[in-house]
């Protein structure tokens, strides 16, 4: 299993770091300083599951035939500062590099779309099957308020900001028919192998934001189990992009492990 291999590699790397003799004295001093000032550090890895979804799902989408989350890895660090030695409240930032993606096939009816390619525009209403592949590589920066429920459990909540580094939003329509321009237009049927592809990758926004709610449980002295839900509040597309009739928001649940120093 590829994921487990990655986790194990991360642990080995982090263990090796702390066992490095020459770094030990600096590290020890660093840890003591941190403890005095109520800082905590963690590096973590997790998997994102979710998708970009319209809220609420419009009636034009009749059925979701298949959904594959894709390998959405996230690797990052968490720096938490508590407001006082015994205070349960704190703040955290948790910068990370992550991938958000999904592959879906849906059945749609009267799904308005237009495709612009090389200066030519074809628009109409599609009834039939649509598959979508969405993938973004992001640098995400949440700023969270943290509350310690118990010595081992904490919850967090706050906004996050993401910058996209690689974008893909593409797919194809097939097994259905297109009404040109509007439902009274010429009808053209796609059967079997016929399909039209679309690629809206260039229309994805670079900057995203939303809210994040998280939960962390210290399983062992240095091992955390983390989960957080990222709820996107910005449309993944630019506002000037009118082709897809509704806004799509990325909603992802992230589950993973962290090594706490």
């Amino acid at each position: 299993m590829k994921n487990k291999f990655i986790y194990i590699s991360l642990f080995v790397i982090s263990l090796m770091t702390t066992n490095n003799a020459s770094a030990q004295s600096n590290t020890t001093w660093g840890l003591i300083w941190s403890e005095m000032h109520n800082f905590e550090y963690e590096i973590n890895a997790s998997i994102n599951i979710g998708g970009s979804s319209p809220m609420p799902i419009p009636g034009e989408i009749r059925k979701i035939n298949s959904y594959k989350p894709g390998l959405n890895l996230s690797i990052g660090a968490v720096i938490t500062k508590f407001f006082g030695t015994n205070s349960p409240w704190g703040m955290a930032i948790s910068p990370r590099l992550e991938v958000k993606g999904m592959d879906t096939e849906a059945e749609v009816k009267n799904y308005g779309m237009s495709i612009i390619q090389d200066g030519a525009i074809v628009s109409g209403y599609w009834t039939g099957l649509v598959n979508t592949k969405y993938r973004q590589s992001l640098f995400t920066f949440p700023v969270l308020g943290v509350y310690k429920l118990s010595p081992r459990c904490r919850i967090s909540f706050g906004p996050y900001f993401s910058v996209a580094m690689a974008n893909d939003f593409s797919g194809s329509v097939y097994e259905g028919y297109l009404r040109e321009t509007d439902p009274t237009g010429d009808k053209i049927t796609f059967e079997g192998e016929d399909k039209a592809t679309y690629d809206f990758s260039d229309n994805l926004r670079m900057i995203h934001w939303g809210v994040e709610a998280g939960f962390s449980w210290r399983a062992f002295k240095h091992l955390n189990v983390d989960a957080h839900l990222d709820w996107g509040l910005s449309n993944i597309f630019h506002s000037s992009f009118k082709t897809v009739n509704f806004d799509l928001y990325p909603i992802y649940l992230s589950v993973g492990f962290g090594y706490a120093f």
Partner: protein
Amino acid sequence: MNILKKISFCMVAIFAMYGCQKEPLNAECDIVEASLPTELLSKAPIVENRSVTFIIKDDVELTALAPEFTLTPGATIEPPSGTVRDFSTPQEYTVYSEDGKWHKTYTVTVKYVELALEYSFENVKVGNTNSFKYDVFYEMNPDGGESFTWASGNSGFALTGLGKDGPSSFPTFQRNDGKDGKALCLVTRKTGTFGTRFDKPLAAGNLYIGLFELGIALRDPRGATKFGMPFNMIPLSMKGSFKYKPGEQYCIFDKSYEGKLRPIEGMVDRFNIYAVLFDRTPPAGTPESEAVKFEYLNGDNVLSEDNEQIICVAEIPNEMRVATPNWKEFDIPFIYRPGKSIDTEKLQQGMYSITIVFSSSIDGDYFSGAEGSTLIVDNVELVCRKLGSTPQSDF
């Protein structure tokens, strides 16, 4: 991974629950089928996106007919299906969609088996597409009514998104500088990204008597060009004037080549002009479901040597299919296929159909040709003999 699978299932379930909204009402407002009693008709009704045409037998009165219509489920039609109306002139019906947001007006025409015989390409109307306008040629009867509309591949070209500079950016359009008045202009065009993706990198300019069934054009392009309209005269010859300029680079359709068009050195594009008279009667023993295949000829069989339906063909000779910068006349006789002759009773009942076809690239139906090949045609005439009149010469 099991936990991940469980979480994935939850997400799908959430989406699925969310997705189970009520089925939206139908937005389409089509006439799916139209009918009149079969004994009145010469030919099956023709239903297109905004028009319906009935061709009735010569002895049928058209002042009080009650056509019936099958619509998109949930749609309504005004006036209602089965209303008696006077079809001396075409009548309009409006179909309203189930969701109330859309409506479409159909022109329903009832006519006899007759076609205008002289074509000067003076008349065009706007093609029925909601986006890019293209020319639709039509012919008038001597008594003033519309005789028929010429078909072309323009509605297919409209889907490439390249027709945005007006009707003259389409493969088939009207030109002002005809031999007399206006002329038909056919230009072979590249179809851009969209057309090439669907293995149709070239669109030859074409004009013909028949129908273009856009709906199936993607998967069966030669089946989409349906040739023929009922005809009850004896064709003798076809004449007219033309000019031709072949495009610069002849290309053959090659799926594996870049742009799917492979240039062939030394080969020059050629045009085609031809007319075919054929029998619509299906062979004895053909089941009802198969009979519809004989209503029209199509791109695969319109000139086939072994097509038993074909009675006679007039085709421009190959030596004339060359670059012709100045107006040149053609006069081509109808040649009968071996063993074929006209059955006068069938002719009288309107069981024969005729088609005339013009194309700027002879292999355009196989997406081979030269971009820019231009055929200009004017003053075409079908020389015919009416049934029952004295023959003027042996044939």
